[in-house]
């Protein structure tokens, strides 16, 4: 099992007022993402726990691309991964930002 963090900088703070949200499930080919608004406005971070080892480089690339595209400033994402493919990871991360940006 691997656990690691990916840090990033965001151009802007993620919108909305929600403090936290959760999406997805830790099941085969899927992942669970918990997102919390606990960081400084221009910081973002993803904590990954995955049973599929050896793909850290890909995780870093996918996550940095997500940071650049979504600018989730202030958000900390925590992942329990069940062996999801990169496009599913991106989808869930973006879903979690959408949940945070919903007007409460």
């Amino acid at each position, binding site marked *: *099992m691997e656990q690691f963090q990916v840090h990033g900088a965001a151009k802007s703070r993620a919108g909305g007022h*929600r403090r*936290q*949200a*959760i*999406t997805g*499930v*830790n*099941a085969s080919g*899927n992942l*669970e993402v*918990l997102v*919390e608004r606990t960081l400084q406005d221009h910081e973002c971070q993803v904590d990954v*726990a*995955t*049973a599929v080892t050896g793909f850290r480089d890909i995780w870093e690339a996918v996550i940095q691309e997500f940071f650049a595209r979504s600018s989730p400033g202030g958000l900390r994402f*925590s992942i*329990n*991964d*069940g062996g999801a493919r990169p496009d599913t990871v991106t989808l869930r991360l973006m879903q979690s930002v959408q*949940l945070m940006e*919903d007007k409460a």
Partner: protein
Amino acid sequence: MSNRLQTYEASWYEASARDRVAGLLDADSFVEFLGPEQRAMSPHLAQFDLTGAFDDGIVVGRGRLDSQEVFVAAQEGRFLGGAFGEVHGAKLVGLLRAARDSAGPAGPRAVLLLLDTGGVRLQEANAGELAISEIIHAIVEVRSAGIPVLALVGGRAGAFGGGGIITACCSRIVASEHARVSVSGPEVIETNKGVEEFDSKDRALVWRVCGARTRYLTGGVDRYVKGSIPDFRKTAIALIAHAPPFELATLKAEQRRLSERLQRFGDCRDAPEIWRKAGLPESEHIAEITDDAFLAIQRIKGADHDAR
């Protein structure tokens, strides 16, 4: 903190545990206890190289159902098969004890258990098994305090093993077509007793033996619903007022109905034999007809009971 549902008619089967809770209860009324941000997770999975879930696969909390205060627990059937582990089980035990202790005019009107489980989580087998016993003990206490406990079953994992036993300790049981309610899983029976005894790959057989339609017709579950979340909601609301008390008279009535079932159908090995003996129409096609057609069938005598 719930996910938005895609459509109002969302399928119970397809929905996550959180979506079921959100759709079942009055809008925005749910307050979660020990939510995922608290990270009350299993400490036993890492040694098996497994990742966990922030809520250990069960959502517990309170909310309103048709403006009545209720406590709710929902298992996520896709996380490790919705199985009971130490933390998962303890969350449900704590919820039930809280219901017991707050029984009264200001307390919950009912406890809703959205069960979706294969039974005990083998990596934590002893803790899961004991948790199941603690849960049953607590359900009895809640019912004895006058609070109905409703089981709602319709997910991917069904209600197997200790989950099947928990289901039948509840005051009322609601199930949709997808639900299977049983003790031993078909694969386990096949492994132990051979394919003649149970061909676990025969899906039609699995549903004839432990599926919701068989359970409903024989009185093994109390309500059969179509599979949308609003269907479960409507039925749960209706059932709260009709829950049997936990007392000697109820259990004596259950003793009678279960004895009768054995006497009448104790030599049957498949559901159509039961339907023929009971004189039900369509005995060969019960699995294939629509939910509407199925609901029009009269249940076996004695199946519509409150002896649970």
